[in-house]
């Protein structure tokens, strides 16, 4: 890290100075970091020796993940009864977790695809890790519909395989749509993420010091040479994939919401669900991105790349989508009341005063609707601790929201004789905790072996990347030892 050692990790005062000039466009990378600094800083995290905290963290998360896998094995070998499900409540934590993780998986593709198409350059600092998070969240999500069924070994019935009985899956079932939607989303997200990785993999290949690293990074870099031709193809592919991903961002969670919206359970059967769910997914996804990046930014000293401006912008997205969600909450109550339908009316009454009342008051009202309102104020948007607190609230609140929708709808529906309660078992809890283990383990592996920030893209948005760029202070900076401007 010889190139970077010359520059201090954090330059105090610089960022506040830029913030105080409201009319000037705030630079995306602070302290006029140059290409070399970026390469060194980001590749350095991959190339160096794994720090001790990484091993400790990985040991914990992987143990949690293993225990989660054990719980899954126990459930598959023994029966779904090891969870707390019962007769009115056929889905509880399993589908709650599924929707929760799928929701988290939304932010990544939204940041990479939609913001890319909208030419939001600030996305470049966060898109890589957001996309990785998406993939890992979708992996966690995919576990649940896979194993929550009674006969896991027969789950291939969901695939439209031609067979001698002539039985096809039921294409009217939203659960089947889910299978298609989630698998498509996952495939496209993997492609998109990988495509974006190629130039950076090539950088790592070029910088690799051992043969194995060179070989592996070399294979995955697909012979990238950084030529004009390479770049042209790359950018076209990236654009096409962004175009392909954009509708998927909206469709996946819409389809997930159809699981509920097309059914007849009071509180599920609502037309508001697709936009409501998509907004909620982006809301929860951004919160999770921040949850991961705020510590990573501090640990790897990336404050110049992931600046307070980024956090501020993401907080604004959270505020916006949080307000969508709050509006949807309010609208649900209004529609239930306006419909006059006693079953709907009761279900919403039960949501706030029934046995799960505090889930609503704490989870939906406080965490989801109220806590993001702090982001109306720049002071709070730019305060790391407040942001982190709100993000944790949103993470929890979004899980509660899904739980309230699923269990709250099921546990008291039409026939009071069949009303019941859901009480989670230790297997429920540990399966869920286990998916956090899987998610975090994968994320730790990701930041260990792959550049967590898209180096090439960050460089593209640097002023130096603009051929017409001519900064009056350029020479001064170079003289100050910022490093060469190559590539």
């Amino acid at each position, binding site marked *: 890290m010889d190139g970077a050692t010359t520059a201090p990790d954090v330059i105090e005062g610089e960022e506040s100075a830029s913030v105080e000039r409201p009319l000037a466009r705030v630079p995306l990378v602070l302290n006029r970091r140059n290409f070399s600094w970026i390469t060194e800083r980001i590749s350095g995290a991959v190339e160096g020796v794994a720090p001790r905290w990484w091993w400790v963290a990985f040991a914990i998360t992987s143990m949690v993940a293993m225990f989660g896998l054990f719980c899954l094995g126990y459930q598959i070998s023994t029966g*779904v009864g090891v969870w707390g499900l019962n007769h009115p409540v056929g889905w509880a934590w399993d589908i709650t977790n599924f929707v929760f993780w799928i929701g988290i998986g939304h932010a990544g593709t939204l940041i990479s695809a939609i913001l890319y198409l909208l030419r939001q350059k600030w996305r470049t600092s966060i898109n890589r890790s957001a996309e990785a998070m998406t993939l890992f969240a979708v992996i966690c999500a995919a576990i649940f519909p896979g194993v929550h069924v009674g006969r896991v070994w027969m789950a291939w019935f969901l695939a439209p395989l031609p067979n001698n009985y002539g039985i096809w899956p039921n294409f009217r079932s939203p659960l089947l749509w889910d299978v298609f939607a989630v698998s498509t989303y996952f495939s496209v997200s993997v492609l998109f993420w990988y495509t974006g990785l190629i130039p950076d993999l090539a950088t790592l290949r070029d910088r690799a010091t051992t043969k194995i690293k060179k070989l592996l990074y070399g294979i995955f870099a697909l012979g990238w040479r950084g030529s004009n031709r390479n770049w042209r193809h790359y950018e076209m592919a990236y654009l096409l994939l962004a175009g392909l991903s954009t509708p998927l961002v909206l469709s996946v969670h819409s389809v997930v919401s159809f699981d509920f919206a097309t059914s007849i359970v009071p509180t599920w059967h609502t037309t508001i669900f697709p936009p409501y769910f998509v907004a909620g997914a982006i809301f929860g996804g951004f919160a999770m991105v921040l949850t991961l990046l705020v510590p990573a930014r501090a640990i790897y000293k990336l404050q110049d790349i992931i600046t307070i401006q980024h956090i501020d912008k993401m907080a604004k997205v959270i505020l916006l989508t949080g307000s969508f969600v709050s509006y949807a909450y309010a609208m649900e109550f209004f529609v239930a009341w306006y419909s006059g339908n006693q079953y709907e009316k009761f279900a919403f009454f039960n949501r706030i005063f029934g046995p799960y009342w505090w889930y609503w008051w704490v989870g939906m009202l406080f965490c989801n609707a109220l806590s993001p309102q702090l982001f109306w104020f720049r002071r709070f948007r730019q305060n790391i601790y407040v942001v982190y607190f709100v993000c944790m609230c949103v993470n929890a609140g979004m899980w509660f929201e899904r739980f309230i929708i699923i269990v709250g709808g099921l546990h008291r529906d039409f026939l009071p004789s069949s009303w019941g309660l859901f009480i989670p078992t230790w297997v429920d809890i540990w399966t869920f905790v286990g998916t956090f283990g899987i998610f975090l383990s994968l994320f730790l592996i990701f930041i260990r072996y792959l550049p967590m920030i898209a180096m090439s893209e960050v460089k593209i948005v640097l002023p130096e990347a603009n051929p017409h760029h001519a900064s009056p202070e350029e020479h001064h900076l170079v003289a100050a030892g910022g490093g060469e401007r190559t590539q």
Partner: protein
Amino acid sequence: MKRVFEHPAEKLTGKRYWRSLNEFSDTPEFRGWLEREFPSGAAQLNGDEWSRRGFLKLMGASMALAGFGLTSCRRPEMHLVPFSKSVEWTIPGKALYYATAMPRRTGAIPLIAATVDGRPIKLEGNPLHPASGGATDAFAQASLLDLYDPARAKRFAEVKEKEENGEKKRVLETRDRAAFEKYLADLQTKIAADGGAGLAFLSEEVHSPTRERLRTKLQEKYPKMRWCVYDPLLTEAQSFATQLSFGDNARLVPRLERADVVLAIDSDFLDCGEGDLAGIRAFSSRRRIGEAKETMNRLYTVENCFTLTGAMADHRMRCPASQIPAFTRALAGKIAIATKDQGLASTIATLSEPVNAMQFDDAWLTECANDLMAKPGASLVLAGPHQPVVVQLMVYAINSALKNVGATLVIREFIKTPKTNSILQLAGEMNSGRIKQLFILGGDPVYNAPKGITIDKDTKAPVDWTDLQKKVPDVVRLGYYEDATSELSTWQVPSAHYLESWSDALTNDGAYLAIQPMILPLFGGMSELDLMNAVLGNAKVDGPELVQETFRATAPPGDFQTAWTQLLRDGFATHVALKEKPPTFNSNNAGGVAHTLWTSAPNPTLDAPEIVLTRSYNIDDGRYINNGWLQELPDPITKLTWDNAALMSPAMAKHLGVETGDLINIAVTETTKDTNGKNIRRELVIAALISPGHADNSISIALGYGRKRTGPIGEEAGFNGFLLRNSSNPHFIAVDSKTVESVSVTTAPTEKQPASPSPGAPSAAPTTPPKVRAHTLGSYALSITQDHWSIEGRGLVREASLEHYREDPEFVKKIAGDEELPARLPSIYSHPPLTAEQQWGMSVDLNVCTGCSACIIACQAENNIPIVGKLQVGHGRAMHWLRLDRYYASEKPFNQDLGEYPENPEIVHEPMMCQHCENAPCETVCPVNATVHSEDGLNVMAYNRCIGTRYCANNCPFKVRRFNFFDYNQRPMGKKKVGPLEVYQEYIAPFTEKGAPDTTKLQKNPNVTVRMRGVMEKCTYCVQRIEEAKIAAHVKAGASPNTRIPTDSFTSACAQVCPTGAIVFGDVKDPESKVSKMKMQDRNYRLLEYLNVNTRTSYLARIRNPNPKMPDANRIAVASLGHESHENGAKHEPAEMKPEEKP
């Protein structure tokens, strides 16, 4: 015996052709010619006295005698035929049906048993006999499972005392039958030595003429022997009162079909469990109402704890059981004054005014009495059998005054029975050492005999049966289970099931039924008759000889063999006439006895509550404790499974500060003293259950639970109410200062637990539940299948008074809240066409459904539905395809979430099974097409295709789909000790043994798949029966196109079992079918119609018939009143209600 098949002559169709004029004229000569194999005379050897046939017979006999073929010569096989070689009259996969009967405490239920490959798999009522009419009850249905119970006694065992770790233990050692027979032979010499002076039999109440005959023979052989009958739930009060009032051998048969007004005084006559299905059907025949102008009967009940009868009632008064005498006296007084009946007046004249009795609502009493008196000869007053003699006498006198005796109350003469001792007499003799040989035929007296059954002469302290039985040198116990009584016997003999043995029985009103075995005893058990026959010293009989001999004595008409065959085929004998007795009430006898026996306990208070010991709806007196189906059957009123509990009113629970599931300590101090001169104190720690509609200051406990030793199903289930029961107050314990000094109910354990229990104290019995915690009693998990009992103003059960129904026959279409629901729009899904010629549907008449729950067990037996165990029921995973929803309705709204209870509600029942929606919401959501619609309107399940996403169950508005959370059919359920831990085996399934016990497998219906774990299941409308009927129709049709199943020629299991015919299944496309006719009625409605699911099952609204003059008439038939509308003050007119929220 060769089976002779006589097929009925085929009907000729089409043109008739003939071969000759002889054939055309069909002369007898021609017929003879046709049937003869050879021309006339050809069989004779020419010119010889031997016929050809005779010659061959002779030759054959000589060959046999000469020794050839002796190896293949066998005695005729008397057993049922084993199926290792197929028998000519069986078709594999087809059931054979045999008539038999199930003996019961008060009679017997005639049955038809379906057997497949020699295994009985389902029991149905015998439709030919009115005592069943094709219906059965839950116990008869579940008795099949007892046959295959892996825990039943399987061995002859001798009980030995052994020392183990310095402790003396009684251990059952396995012996064979020969050893027992040898022992019995020795015993016979001992018995014969003094003419049977030391011999005693203790048996249960069974009405078997053959048993009576054998008993008479025993009496002849051993004239000094004693015969004693003990059945914990039968008292002599009713029969004593009957004999007194109507003469010897009299038995009362209520004719409910003739009664317009019925008053049930602590009488649960609609309880199917007593086996009186004819009575229930008779009652419901007057309850069923086709259209508004028809009339129906009116039922008043006065009772302590909600019963099925109380749930059906038009007017119900809560009254502690100990206040029933006071109530009856007050009612009798009113009727006596109004009717000026001498008999009634003289019966009650000398009864003193009860002190501190309950204050009854005078208007209620007066109007009830007026209503009864308005229908002389068409009213009926019934008293529960556990009420004291005085109440019975007063009730007979009231009926006599109302001219009901002979009209609605028929007196029948029963067979004369020789003198029977009571268990108290037997206990006295055992105590004095006179009994040397005791045969206990069934029953479990160590568990259920009254505590302190006799007073020891020396110590003057009461003695328990446990100690008495130890004093008898030879005790032979014929028992179905190895239980507490077996342990204290000398020999335990395995008892045969009634489906394994020959016997006979009498129904409630005295009709003669045959009981024939369906299968050889699975574990080589002996029947009661076998054992009595053996004690008589007769040779062992394998066949029906004992019963045949009895039957011969009834003088059957015609040839005996034909009559016998007829008896076995029909299941009953028509020539055994029912004898009527003159309907005269002997008021002289009654008055005198009433005067001597009259007592009236003071009204129970919180400090001195009464304890009522009742029959369990699930396990009777405890005899079905090891029956998983019955254990898991929700109690029809409380919906409690796997346990009993102390039922109490919400007010009482509030005063005591207990919630459902909290343990309470009931302590009864008696006036009798133990050896230390202290008053005997009997205690029971039991979980409380708040039961709306229960009388205040009274606690009801179902008997039969809390057994230490029985099969794995029954062990540790519930609390032993017998611990509180002594011989002087077998049915209710109230402080009367004669036998009971005080009754206390606390939530804390008593000051001191006796360390060494004094003899006679109840804790000496091995049945004390060790459930007491250190300082607080804590709580106990009760598994209740329905937690929410308010209907929340939803039009699920629709109900109206008869008056309202007459005013507005269309009331059922106008239920509060409905008008706000969205209009039914067409379905946007395409649905498979319902093109089949016959379309299946169901209708449930809520007006006659008593809630008896027989349908649940019938469904379970028919469809191989597993039990899931107490813990799983508690987790809400009961598998019943058919459940009975029970709602409490009250005129005032109550919010259950806030812990509010209605004090005095009415109950409505609603059987809930798959509604077979035409636009089924479950079908559209299944991702793998595992649940689809058939052309004949069934919502069918393909178990093989199901992967168990449970989406269908979530989307089912009726929540009738059941998911196999564990491998209920393959893996053991329930607790097991693993090292120091007690684990529930379902949670360690991969480490348990796989596979069901063999005997359990035998019970399964081969036409229904046994489901594995992870699969969704639900009511199929008994699709296997539909298919069977279809196949039969196709076979019958042959090449002709008429494959239509004849109208109402078969039905589903729940409809078949229903004693009141409330459930009707059939072809809804056929206007002539019963179900179509029911659906045409104006009371017909479908559930959640606004969802546009088009259910195939519909309901007929419930009609109650309150007396408008009664003070509580306003709060009757309120189940379907939305509470919002109710507050607006307009009752019975939900249609005109304005919803509270108009935009």
